[in-house]
């Protein structure tokens, strides 16, 4: 079953007089349980693509169908709600609300979904346990390392029980130990919870761990392989 279907996505930016095709006829489908890396040189359209399937930006044309909904047709307020209920996000860095503890950051999203206090508490503990931060649940982001912060971000992304998790260069600011730690965790959650992960990356170690690798160049898909 496909979690995401994209058809004929186009997105053009104008930089001065030059037209840049950030997405040039991209049609990719993703199935439940994928662990997919979007790769390609800088400026190839990776972020633009992730933003399109994450409902953060609308393509100029084409469809993005998630859960039977064409999200390109949603109004901005509906989109915010759609993101809350269906998509988990992990950004490059500074994902967390600095004044909230790790636990509160994870709970925050469930609170917005209207979960009861009891289910929030148990799920938060379960997720922070799963990312190996049992001891740090009451620390604020400033008291955590970059890798630990990204692990909290992964826990938060999963907290809303999304259809899939999008991660835009999640390891860009991490050292190699933290990178492999984070990957282990994402991989295990992928295996155990059948959670779909789609991430963009430059990092060869990340690429090596992916099950499917989609390569973009100048806004076009130039290869799509399953390892």
């Amino acid at each position, binding site marked *: 079953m496909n979690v995401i279907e994209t058809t004929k996505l186009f997105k053009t930016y104008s930089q001065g007089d030059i037209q840049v095709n950030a997405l040039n006829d991209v049609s990719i489908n993703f199935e439940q349980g994928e662990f997919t890396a979007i790769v390609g040189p800088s400026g190839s359209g990776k972020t633009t693509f992730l933003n399109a399937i994450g409902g*953060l930006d609308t393509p100029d044309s084409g469809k993005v169908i998630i859960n039977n909904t064409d999200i390109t047709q949603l109004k901005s307020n509906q989109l915010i709600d759609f993101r809350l209920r269906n998509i988990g996000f992990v950004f490059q860095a500074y994902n967390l609300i600095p004044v909230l503890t790790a636990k509160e950051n994870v709970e*925050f999203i469930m609170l*917005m979904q209207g979960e009861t206090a009891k289910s929030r508490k148990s799920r938060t503990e379960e997720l922070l346990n799963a990312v190996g931060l049992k001891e740090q649940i009451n620390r604020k982001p400033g008291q955590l390392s970059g890798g630990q912060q990204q692990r909290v971000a992964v826990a938060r992304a999963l907290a809303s029980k999304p259809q899939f998790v999008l991660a835009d260069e999640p390891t860009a600011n991490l050292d190699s130990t933290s990178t492999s730690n984070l990957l282990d965790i994402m991989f295990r959650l992928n295996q155990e919870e059948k959670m779909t992960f789609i991430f963009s990356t430059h990092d060869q170690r990340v690429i090596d761990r992916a099950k499917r690798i989609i390569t973009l160049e100048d806004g076009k898909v130039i290869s799509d392989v399953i390892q």
Partner: protein
Amino acid sequence: MLIKLAWRNIWRNKKRSFITITAILIAVFLAIIMRSLQLGMYDNMIQNVVGSYSGHVQVHSKGYWEEQTIDNAFEFNDSLIQKIENNINVSNTTKRIQSGCLSSNSDLSKFVFVTGIEPQKEQLMTDWNKRLIDGELLKPNSQAINIGKGIAKYYDLHIGDTLIFIGQGYHGMQAVGAFQVSGILDMKNPALNNISVFMSLSSAQEFLSAEGLMTHLVINKKEYSDEKEIVASLQKELNKNYEIMSWQEMMPEIEQVIQADSAGGLIMIFILYMIITFGIFGTVLMMTQERKYEFGVVVSIGMKKVKLMISMVYETIFLTSIGIFLGILLSRPIVLHYYNNPLEFPAEEAEMMESQGFEAVIPFMSSYDIPITHGLIIFFISLIICIYPIITIYKLNPIKAMKR
């Protein structure tokens, strides 16, 4: 959660929040002290002239103020007075009957106002012992008179001397009488000192052939209550045969002086508020700008913009409320202190003021209206400032916000 978020966000930049709160505190504090002093001064001024003599509100027979003659006197009845005294803003009332007449002693003569008063009730308005400079005060049914020191000086009268009055009584009756001076008063006002003769209500009514009549019903309001409210409610309650006037209508010049002076103070407070507005705005601007990335993240993961706006409004309100609260808290003991122990003018000025009929002290006004008003003003300013983060969040595009 939004409240928790807002509260913690305030302490993110402790130094800046501290400075902002302190600035608000100082503004509220200064505004309250300034206004308490000013309004206290006016209140005291009004109290001296109005509260102790004319009363805050007077009831006359219709047309009396235009034509102040004894023929415009009215009959009093207890139900009328009862009705007035039942008004929640009214502190006490007293009856007077007043008429102009000629006084004479040996070769001299002088126009004076004879006023019949209820000594005990007058005492509720002001302490007549402070006015007495010689002799004794009137008793309820005494036959003697108290006179202003100006009159005493003019005739060179002393206690026990007699003064003759000739005038017109009620409905054209002849009013003639000789009265013994039992006390000499300093009315703290040169005009009043030259013209005032007081007798007991009953002797004045007899002298003027006006049994059971009065010209003025003088009403004193409770502290800090509104005389205009008294006028409005009495106008509804009493019938059309009476005219009900506030002191502002009877003595518009005093109100004008106060308004002119008050305007100066308000301009200063306005400037103070302008500065504070920019101070708060600067802080809110920085708070908003430096958090745009974070706004981008939380909107991306699904936080509704309205919730984010509410959180920023809370944050701004908390910040200002702390300042307002502390400002009020710190000003209160000072205001109360100077309410109970009024500021005194230095001796030279004091003498000058007293000669003009003013008490040379400024008691602060302790009414809660002042802190509430100024607290609310700053509160509303902060609400208006919230428009900035609200618009910023409304316009926020999460992708742009997260691009560095």
